[in-house]
């Protein structure tokens, strides 16, 4: 049924139709000062110039202190800060929030779900909360669930949150010279952060109409592009790689999938490429995102990216892009966002129009 959803939405014009929801405001949180490539290279004992050339990411933020290893912020801390910022900017009162949806690949605990700690920090109570176990498509999945809850679920407003603390796996004592390439690459790709949006059934705040969402599993029979393992008491000493990234498969498939997502969204929305004013492409790394944006080839669209400055912080990325978009988008302008989750090959994207 999910694959039918954008088609149904596209058949209804944006406006009073119940298939459109609205983003009233966006908030973000990046922990601490940006960490540049010189600092990261020195800390990890790898070559700085290689990170510049092959990753193309300039800075990232870590919740963990690189000098001491001390954890300065939890995922819940970052998500609550982003959500509070979004809530304040939206002009909605906390009692108007009917639900909280959150996506993450790196929860603080398996239980309680981090979303409930976030709600607690925000002073929210007696409302439904949902946490999606998700990677790079997680923000879109959270937006889709929030969209469904305000368009057909009887709710008027909710918080949609995405965040990741990848530095949980940043083992500073480790000798990386023995690390497998599929392990090593993660040290130079990722960062930490969180983002949030207030989603509403009626136009409020920024009045950004969410006129289409695509979220589809396409990984039948396909090996995962990325695996993040977890360990319990019985297997914590196993010599398994905590994160495995099939970067060759990702480099090959993600640009192709991004183009497929773009054309599917355009077709479902009945938009022409020329009608897209802003493009929010997948945020893998500075270098990969540059390449994908070029391959997407939208003639008149302004690219809105953040990964070169924030690092790949997973579920936070689309919110960081949305925050930058809000500084630029004018009434009547349109934006398309594309995200690919290479874990088990999920296609996702969404369409926005400022009214």
């Amino acid at each position, binding site marked *: 049924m999910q694959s039918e959803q954008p088609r149904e939405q596209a058949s209804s014009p944006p406006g009073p139709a119940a298939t459109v929801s609205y983003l009233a405001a966006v908030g973000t949180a990046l922990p601490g000062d940006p960490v540049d490539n010189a600092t990261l290279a020195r800390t990890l*004992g*790898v*070559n700085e*110039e*290689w990170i510049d*050339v*092959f990753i193309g990411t300039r800075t990232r933020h870590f919740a963990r202190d690189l000098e001491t290893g001390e954890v300065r912020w939890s995922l819940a801390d970052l998500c609550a800060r982003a959500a509070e910022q979004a809530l304040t900017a939206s002009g909605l009162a906390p009692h108007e929030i009917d639900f909280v949806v959150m996506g993450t690949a790196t929860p603080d605990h398996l239980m309680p779900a981090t979303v409930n700690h976030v709600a607690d920090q925000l002073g929210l109570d007696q409302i439904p909360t949902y946490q999606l176990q998700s990677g790079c498509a997680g923000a879109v999945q959270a937006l889709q669930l929030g969209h469904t809850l305000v368009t057909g679920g009887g709710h008027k407003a909710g918080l949609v949150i995405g965040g990741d603390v990848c530095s949980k796996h940043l083992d500073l004592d480790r000798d*990386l*010279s*023995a*690390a*497998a*390439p*599929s392990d*090593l*690459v993660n040290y130079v790709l990722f960062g930490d952060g969180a983002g949030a949006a207030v989603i509403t059934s009626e136009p409020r705040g920024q009045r950004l109409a969410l006129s289409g969402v695509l979220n589809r599993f396409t990984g039948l029979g396909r090996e995962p592009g990325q695996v993040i393992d977890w360990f319990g008491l019985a297997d914590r000493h196993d010599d398994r790689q905590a994160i495995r990234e099939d*970067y*060759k498969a990702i480099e090959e498939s993600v640009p192709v999938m991004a183009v497929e997502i773009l054309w599917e969204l355009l077709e479902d929305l009945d938009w022409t490429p020329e009608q897209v004013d802003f493009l929010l492409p997948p945020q893998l790394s500075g270098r990969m995102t540059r390449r994908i944006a070029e391959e997407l080839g939208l003639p008149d669209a302004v690219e809105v990216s953040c990964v070169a400055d924030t690092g790949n912080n997973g579920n936070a990325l689309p919110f960081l892009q949305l925050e930058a978009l809000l500084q630029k988008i004018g009434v009547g302008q349109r934006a398309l966002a594309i995200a690919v989750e290479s874990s088990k090959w999920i296609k996702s994207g969404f369409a926005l129009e400022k009214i």
Partner: protein
Amino acid sequence: MHTIDDFVRLVRDELGMPLEEYQVAADLDQLPEWDSLYLLKLVTALEQATGRSLPVGRLLEARSLGEIYQLAAGT
């Protein structure tokens, strides 16, 4: 690292790449496993072995492991 033999040993041991002698002069495209991450591993290992920082921009012009060795050894 003083000789090409030391270099070959370093590639085999530190990178885990099964390198035959004749592959030292082969074009990098002919090495089945070679990619940018192996370059990072090699640069890291060479920097540890030589105690000197390597210019990745110049290494990118090298077309074989032998050429990388020459750049790293400063010959």
